[in-house]
């Protein structure tokens, strides 16, 4: 029983950490690069221009 679950975990859930990191990473980039809230936009303004994001 235990062995079976371990196998399922290795095969089926092995990609979960990678998916989690990709979602987290894209979330961070969306926040710093795209969200138009005024405070975020002003703080990230120079970075958005320098990094090639559409800014305003």
């Amino acid at each position, binding site marked *: 029983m235990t062995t079976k679950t371990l196998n399922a975990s290795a095969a089926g859930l092995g990609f979960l950490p990678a998916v989690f*990191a990709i979602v987290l990473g894209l979330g961070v980039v969306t926040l710093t690069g795209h969200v138009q809230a005024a405070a975020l936009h002003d703080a990230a303004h120079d970075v958005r*221009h320098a990094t090639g994001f559409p800014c305003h």
Partner: protein
Amino acid sequence: MTPRMTCVTQLASPATKQMYTRILTSALFAGAAAGLIAALLQLVFVQPVLLHAELYESGELVHFGGTPVSAHPELPGFDLMRDSLSIVFTMLTYTGYTLVMVALMSMAEGRGAAINARTGLIWGIAGFIAFHLAPGFTLAPEVPGVAAADVGDRQVWWTATVATAGAAMWLIAYGGNKISYLIAVALLMAPHLIGAPEPDSFSGPVPTEIGALFAARAFGVGLAAWALVGTFAGYFWQTEGERAEASA
């Protein structure tokens, strides 16, 4: 009875936990290091061009008037609040990039690819193409003050272009057959053939010389930063893996 209990707690097996730690640790180290250097490069090479453009954006300087305007005005110097925020946000942005890159590296290693600082350099260049060069090929890095279409429309196009270019990079690296190369070429070209949202008219008050220098500097610093992203991501992925093995 005990094995049944073990079954339930296997959702996060030690191997899975170790994988979370390895991905997050490598990505944070690589993102912070590459982001800090990128921020300093931007402050030295991009920020003066941006500040120069803002003098025209605000109307403080006007070109094509009656008299020629000096190309070397006095620029505002280092602004502690503004530039510190830029450093923090650059480090955050590049940490976002390294989280995605290290995750993809872990998948590629699972398929047998060698991941280290040397191969990481190629990953970094591919990342630059996907996240910076591809969208910038049609939506050129914008100096403050340029005329541009609605920001929401441009963000949709930017995101779609990054997604298609990223998929193309993966297909070129791991597709392994002629069809995948053809699909990659189509994915790379499609957003630019379709075209990005464009402004209805040109109203930018910034001299073309400044706009061109800004785009060149943004791409140059971007390439340097992404080369570091890939190299650091590959390096930390490898060393964190060795450390985990040694302590296991």
